[in-house]
């Protein structure tokens, strides 16, 4: 015999003792003390079960399931749980994974019902504010379908720790005084005060947030079954909302259009100071670029940045994921690697003009990610318009081409990096160097190769710096 409906400790001790004594489930009858003696002597000798010693282990998840199922209303839950414990104790493996096993299935269904009831209690308990002797207390009446009040009280404690509250139900009541929880006998709804001052506000909110053009009564009742309505202050408004919905929509649709648009009165944002520098003008124009189709799925044009009189210009392939979001070149993982390499090579990034051959990010969407796609020759050619302006305006002493796309954009031909790397290539008014793109370094799987290639990359940067300083 268990002390009360959710006497978890009593059931667990009894189940452990019975299983260790090899008492089969068929020999056990479970019962709960009736409410008349519920609080008389809860921890007396009634549990006449053997208490042998010995190790008793069942899967942790099964214990969790049992803790939930014991809150179910069905009287056979104790016996069902003992049968499962018994099977696990007798060595049945993977019991919990056999989700189609009839006994486990039954237990899972009970647990599901308890969880749903638990969730509905968290949703539909409505406190009323009571002021007594200058102190404010919150009281709610709720009718759960299962024995969930004890286990669920902790939720309300976490949420309303700084309030004093009571939740009354037909079988049990829970109280929180700001310090500790206590449980008392069941109550009746008359003990709960009537609507308080805010109930009318809540009903008004409920009525106003309802869109009469979308009446879907069954969607409401499947989630908020009618059995809960009598304790929800807002539910009183439902019948009238449903009745009037059709007429409200008809009125909206039939009422002729009343108002014409008024003239635009758009505020002006503090516009960036108009700059006459050709580079700044090009940047502004490039923001609206439609020279190829890459602008469409992208967030923004990522134009180059750096001093217009920089002696070094670095040109990458295209804006990447981060660059597209931030609107600045080389700020993602490859950019961070470039920063590190530049620092090691003694180059101050703020003194370098950094840009890309293609100024929009080309990608394939893949779930929550975007996968980089290599720009084709047409896109490189289209974007060359902007690159040419940048190169002409900055007129750098050294132009560092990071990777094959940049090399193609500037040199106008297909370039094999390994063949042309690290040697000066004369350009009109500048000297070009071809090296790898930092993203290439990130892609190398082999640590040793990465270290070797990184060192070679830094060496290339050093040469560029020397040449620029000469």
């Amino acid at each position, binding site marked *: 015999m268990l002390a009360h409906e959710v006497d978890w400790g009593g059931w667990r001790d009894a189940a452990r003792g019975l299983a260790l004594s090899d008492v089969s489930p068929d020999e056990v009858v479970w019962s709960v003390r009736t409410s008349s003696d519920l609080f008389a002597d809860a921890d007396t000798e009634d549990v006449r079960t053997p208490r042998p010693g010995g190790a008793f282990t069942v899967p942790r998840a099964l214990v969790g399931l049992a803790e939930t199922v014991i809150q179910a209303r069905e009287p056979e839950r104790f016996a069902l749980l003992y049968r499962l414990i018994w099977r696990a104790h007798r060595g049945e493996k993977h019991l919990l*994974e056999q989700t189609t096993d009839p006994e486990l299935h039954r237990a899972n269904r009970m647990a599901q019902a308890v969880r749903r009831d638990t969730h509905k209690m968290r949703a539909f308990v409505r406190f009323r504010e009571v002021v007594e002797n200058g102190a404010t207390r919150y009281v709610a009446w709720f009718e759960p379908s299962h024995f969930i009040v004890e286990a669920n009280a902790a939720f309300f404690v976490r949420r309303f720790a700084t309030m004093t509250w009571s939740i009354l139900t037909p079988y049990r009541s829970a109280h929180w005084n700001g310090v500790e929880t206590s449980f008392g006998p069941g109550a009746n709804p008359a003990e709960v005060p009537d609507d308080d001052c805010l109930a009318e*506000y809540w009903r008004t909110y409920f009525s106003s947030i309802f869109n009469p053009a979308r009446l879907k009564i069954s*969607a409401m009742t499947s989630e*908020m079954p009618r059995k809960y309505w009598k304790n929800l202050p807002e539910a009183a408004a439902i019948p009238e909302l449903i009745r009037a919905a059709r007429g409200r929509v008809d009125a909206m649709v039939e009422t002729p259009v009343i108002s014409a648009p008024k003239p635009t009165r758009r505020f002006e*944002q503090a516009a960036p100071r108009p700059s006459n520098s050709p580079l700044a003008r090009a940047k502004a124009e490039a923001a609206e670029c439609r020279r190829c189709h890459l602008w469409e799925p992208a967030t923004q044009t990522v134009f180059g940045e750096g001093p217009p009189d920089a002696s070094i210009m670095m040109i990458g392939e295209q804006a990447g994921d981060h660059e597209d979001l931030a609107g600045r070149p080389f700020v993602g993982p490859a950019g961070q690697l470039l920063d590190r390499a530049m620092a090691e090579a003694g180059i101050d990034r703020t003194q370098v003009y950094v840009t890309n051959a293609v100024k929009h990010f080309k990608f394939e*969407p893949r779930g929550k990610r975007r996968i980089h796609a290599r720009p084709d020759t047409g896109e490189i050619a289209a974007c060359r318009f902007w690159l040419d302006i940048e190169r002409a305006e900055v007129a750098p002493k050294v132009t560092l081409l990071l990777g094959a796309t940049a090399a193609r954009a500037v040199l106008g031909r297909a370039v094999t990096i390994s063949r042309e790397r690290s040697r000066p290539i004369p350009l009109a008014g500048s000297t070009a160097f071809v090296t790898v793109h930092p993203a290439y370094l990130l892609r190398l799987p082999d640590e040793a190769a990465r270290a070797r290639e990184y060192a070679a990359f830094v060496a290339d940067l050093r040469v560029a710096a020397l040449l620029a300083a000469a």
Partner: protein
Amino acid sequence: MDLLGKLEILADAAKYDASCASSGTDKRNSLGRDGGIGSTEGMGICHAYAPDGRCISLLKILLTNACIYDCLYCVNRRSSNVKRARFTIEEVVTLTLGFYRRNCIEGLFLSSGIIRTPDYTMEQVIGVARCLREEHGFRGYIHLKTIPDADPELLAEAGKYADRLSINVELPSREGLGALAPEKDFAGIRRTMGRMRLRIEAGRETSHTGRRAPRFSPAGQSTQVIVGADASSDRDILDMSTNLYGSYGLKRVYYSAFSPIPDASAALPPKAAPLVREHRLYQADWLLRFYGFAADELATDAAGNMPLAIDPKLAWALEHRENFPTDVNKATREQLLRVPGMGVKSVDRLIRARRFRGLRLDDLARLRLPMGKVMPWVVTVDHRARGLDSVTLGKPAPQQGELLL
């Protein structure tokens, strides 16, 4: 105007925003030394349902419904003749805490018409969140609507107090937005979403010393798009969603079937878009995110739309009968996810269960699969779907879409 009157107007004005999620944020409660009020535990709670079937989880209101913009689909546009009202910061705080203490809500979803300037409006919205968090120790959920043109620094501050930020793309196409919301800037909205994603991701990082980055909108960002107010096809909309999920890591794209508003503009369609289209888009959205489908597999009719009468997965299966029947005891997870009637959870449970025994129809029933839907497509130990070609499988009667309204 009294507070009750304001509440009526400013809740009514907020109801066209579909989002009501209160899930996915970090866990907090008011038990600790700092006290305060409220908790969040990961899972959201719907505290009530309105007769439109939508959940009420948050107090969803506008700070004001006055607006300097004139977006034609919006009931609050400058040229509309609706009654205007404006809450003070204190009034919103009082209502939020009052409802929260009575366990009516999980928190606040605050949006606003644009008054004076975007920056001024954003400051007011942030003011409410700051007061709730800092003066009242409010630990419930806060969702703030961000205003695209507002200063990025204000965005950073909003992210400090909010659990979720959102910015509505409103219409699926640049052209649609240009025509119906001339003052909104399509590119500006996307730039703001990009900035938010960078900040949200930075907020999740821990430095090498183990120090947490400053909090920024831990439940991420979401958006809403109005369906049926412009000419966009389902394909256009799903392509847009694919792009938004991939580009900005959105938690959700909400689809809102255009519904008639009081004092409507003549530029809008005269009647509501079918709610069932919105429903199909949500189904397709799920298929994109959790079932491995792509937009071009779903919206395949000549106009780029999905059938209204049957769900998009069934429509796909009917077009790809050669892929069936699927043997539930052998198929891969990817194949199972494409079986009509099978959800992600049931597929995962099924895969666990079949490790121990060959599954029979009884087992599928115990997995609570909708048997009528599933049986024509699967093979079990004791069942083999026969000749799919002879099965009509609820092929739509023509024009049924309208009836479902």
